[in-house]
């Protein structure tokens, strides 16, 4: 995320027209969370509240988006670092207010960025049940326990936008398969604790 340019940040001064500090806070959060494609509609929604032209609203929204994303990208946590980003003759109170809002939200925003990064389909939930097979067409009487495992898997969040597709996969495991799987999982756990203890 490249550092926002001075010209962009000047647009932030439009926020001086905002009705309240909470409105500014709200706008900051919305600008961070929205993907670049949705900034247009967001600007239109912000127009009436700020009593500015559509063009100015767009500049403002885009500037806020870039600023917040840049701070999260660089992982800036100190007020001084954030204050440096603003141009020299920027309105002092607004600068402090924005820095304060950003610092309040930084860890939530960081988590949000991590949660929405690209990844393989993620495990959302899992359920299991143990059945006993009593008979089948190849053997009339038996008592074989077997496990049914249901995994709820969500496709990559970025690809699905607002409608994440969750698919349920039901897998059957025999006792041997389960033992082998547990062996593998145990090995993972051992390696993880070896890495953690280093």
């Amino acid at each position, binding site marked *: *995320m490249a550092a926002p340019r001075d010209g962009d940040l000047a647009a932030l001064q439009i926020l001086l027209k905002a009705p309240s500090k909470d409105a500014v806070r709200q706008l900051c959060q919305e600008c961070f969370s929205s993907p670049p494609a949705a900034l247009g509609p967001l600007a239109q929604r912000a127009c009436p509240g700020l009593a500015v032209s559509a063009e100015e609203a767009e500049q403002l929204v885009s500037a806020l988006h870039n600023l917040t*994303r840049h701070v*999260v*990208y*660089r*992982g800036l946590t100190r007020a001084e670092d954030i204050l440096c980003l603003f141009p020299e003759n920027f309105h002092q109170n607004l600068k402090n207010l924005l820095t304060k809002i950003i610092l309040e939200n930084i860890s939530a925003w*960081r988590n949000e*960025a*991590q949660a*929405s*990064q*690209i*990844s*393989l*389909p*993620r*495990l959302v939930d*899992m359920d*299991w049940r*143990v059945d*006993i*097979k009593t008979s*089948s067409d*190849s*053997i*009339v*009487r*038996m*008592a*074989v*326990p*077997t*496990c*049914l*495992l249901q*995994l709820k*898997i969500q496709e990559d969040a970025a690809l699905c936008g607002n409608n994440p597709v969750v698919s349920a*996969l*039901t*897998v*059957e*495991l*025999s*006792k041997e*398969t*389960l*033992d*082998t*799987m*547990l062996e*593998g*999982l*145990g090995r*993972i*756990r051992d*390696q*993880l604790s070896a890495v953690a203890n280093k």
Partner: protein
Amino acid sequence: QFSALTEVLFRFLTEPKEVERFLTQLSDFATMNKISLGPLKNIVKSILLVPNGALKRNLSSEQVRADFIALGLSEEKASYFAEQWKVNSPTLTRLAVGQTLMINQLIDMEWKFGVTAGSSELEKVGSIFLQLKLVIKKGSQLENVYVELTLPQFYSFLHEMERVKTSLESFS
């Protein structure tokens, strides 16, 4: 003579995929004993019906022996067959259970875990991820399913699987 034939039969039953070997052994037997292959095949087919039915109904070796005698086989041969049956039945039962319907059977699991160093949203990350590849048999095809888990998810998954294992063990 009969024992050689029984041996061939049981070898086929315990390894049902070795059809070619079974047929070769049958034709060898036919030539050795100067019987023609056609009638021998028919006899073998009818003989095979008995163990298959016995397997389905979990018959003991005495019952198998009684069945054969009822079908007209001499006592000596029937006892010999029953003995072979007793020896081989665990393998045969296991095979039959293995053939029982399984839905989306898990065949294999591969895994890797690592650290996310950075992303387009966050310059420095440093979080651990775990990726599993599950190979599942859907019908007659194999399907690969890829899943990513976070560390806490992995630990609860491991915990749940251990509970399943305890549950399965209490039923065996």
